[in-house]
């Protein structure tokens, strides 16, 4: 349950990426992430503030991603209210991507009219183990081939190759049927 406590109250600590498109009228923002969970969902609350004024930034569109091996998986999105807060939920059935069971939650502001592009990330410990303790049974695609497939495969290929060998044996008999002596 200690693990639960860890990700129940994670507070954002650092800025990862910074502004991409600098436009004077857009503000530089800060995102504070607060995470909790229930039985099946993570609940993330993001508080967006203007860095210069420390005031809440409203109407900022925010997208939440989870880092996966080949890219970012979008899990939620929304727009901040007048208090600069947005709350979103995503499934807690997300596996960590390394042996420490951690995965990254990334909150991004992308092409917003209000705020310059920015991204914040936080590391979360998954409730699920990594790797899975037992291989997931997936019938034919599983780790071990079913016996009937092995038998069918070997039988089909074996019969064909045996017949090839028999045909070559017939060729050998053609040679033997010759009256001539082949040098």
């Amino acid at each position, binding site marked *: 349950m200690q693990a639960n406590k860890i990700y129940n109250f994670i507070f954002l600590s650092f800025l990862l990426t910074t502004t991409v498109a600098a436009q004077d009228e857009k503000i530089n923002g800060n995102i504070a992430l607060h995470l909790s969970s229930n039985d099946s969902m993570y609940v993330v609350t993001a508080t967006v503030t203007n860095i210069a004024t420390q005031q809440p930034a409203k109407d900022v569109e925010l997208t939440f991603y989870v880092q996966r091996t080949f*890219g970012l998986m*979008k899990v939620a999105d929304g727009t901040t209210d007048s208090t600069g807060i947005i709350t979103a939920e995503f499934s807690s059935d997300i596996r960590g991507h390394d042996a420490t069971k951690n995965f990254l939650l990334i909150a991004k502001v992308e092409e917003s009219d209000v705020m310059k592009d920015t991204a914040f990330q936080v590391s979360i410990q998954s409730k699920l183990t990594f790797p899975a303790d037992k291989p997931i049974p997936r019938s034919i695609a*599983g780790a071990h*081939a079913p016996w009937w497939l092995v038998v069918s495969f070997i039988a089909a290929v074996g019969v*064909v*190759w045996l017949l*090839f060998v028999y045909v070559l044996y017939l*060729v050998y008999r053609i040679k033997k049927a010759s009256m001539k002596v*082949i*040098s």
Partner: protein
Amino acid sequence: MEKLNPEIKNQIENELLSTVGRRYRQETFWVIFLGLICVGGTVAWIIQLRKGLGVTAMRDYVSWGLYISLLFFFVGVSLIGALVSCVLRMSGAKWRYPLIRIAEAVTLSAIFFAGFMPVLDMGRPERLYYLITHGRIQSPILWDVVAIATYFIGSVIYFYLPLIPDLAIMRDKLTDAPKWRRKLWRWLAMGWEDNLLQRRLLKKAMLILCIVILPVAISVHTISAWLIAFTLRPGWNSTIMGPYFVFGALMAGTAIMILIIAKLRHGYRLEHYLTPKHFNNLAKILLALTAFYLYLNINKYGVPAYKMAKEEKAVLNDLFYGNNSFFFWFTQIAGLVIPIIILSFKRFRQSIKWVVTASVMVLLGALINRYLIVVPNMLHPFVPIQHAQHGYASYNPTLIEWAITASSLAGFVLLIILLFKPFPVITMWEVTEEVEKRGEKEIGVENIITLQNIPTHAS
């Protein structure tokens, strides 16, 4: 039918043997030209091996590009051997005899390059070894490798069997050939004396192989279809893929067969053996296959288009209106509809030029169709990559890929030409035997009984 006059038989054999080892100016040009393309492709492949697959346009989305498209094409073309040697044999079509060796040569060359294409697609080809040592028997990739290897070996044997009596004729007749050649022919002829026991054994061997090779040939192409049909992707997630590939293959194989016999008929002056009857009969087969393939296309694309499920929509729109729409409609209209119209008329079927024209269109359509089966579907996966890098969501083959692809096609044609250099194009013993039994008309040959009156390059 009476036995052929030994003089006439001798004349036929002389004419057919006259192509063996003979140099034709036009052929020499093509051999050099195709050889140079192959050299260019080999250089491109060495660059690819040194620098990795990064020199191609294949990325996370399109990981199978031109190479695997060409694999499907070659596997398809290779089915022609099974069609001519087995299907036509079982259907009792006697006119197949002059075509058998040509079909087997096409098969042999096609399946050789089909086996080579996955190696080109591998960044580390030496790891193919691990497929043998660590291959998973559940994987269609392993099935494909085994099926292609089996079909290749079967095709080599099937190419060789009807060659045995011809090798004996060459051994006995071409006594002025270089010594090493005569030695090779003598060794390969297996002491053939044309006695009854040898004939019985040879026919038995050919019958067994004919029965075995047909399911092997169909399995090769079905398994190639399963490579993609077992993958959960829009466009690929379909049960029609097996028959779709098999009939598309037979169609492409028949088209390429027509083109090759047209070229050989003219180039090697085999007008008496490869006659309008063969073109007419192959055109009828091509018509039936093209019409059936159009029907399969209507099912493959029409049924999902009617439903327009969300997952299929992107790939279908790409094919119907998007970037690949020109190619798609070309394959449907120029590659299927127009050839069907041309071949539907008896007058056109009896004209070699029209049959060849229709075959070129079918073949071009079939070649592009393989690309359309592979690439657009890979560009529209069920779960797109979030924020994929620029260039990942499109596929424009690089010069390296084009060079390797062109050299594979050139190598395919070159190998067919080279297979006809040491061996006669037509199966001499079967043709003369069948002409004796059934007459010229049924075999489809013309005027070979009165050959002594016909001026040929052999005389």
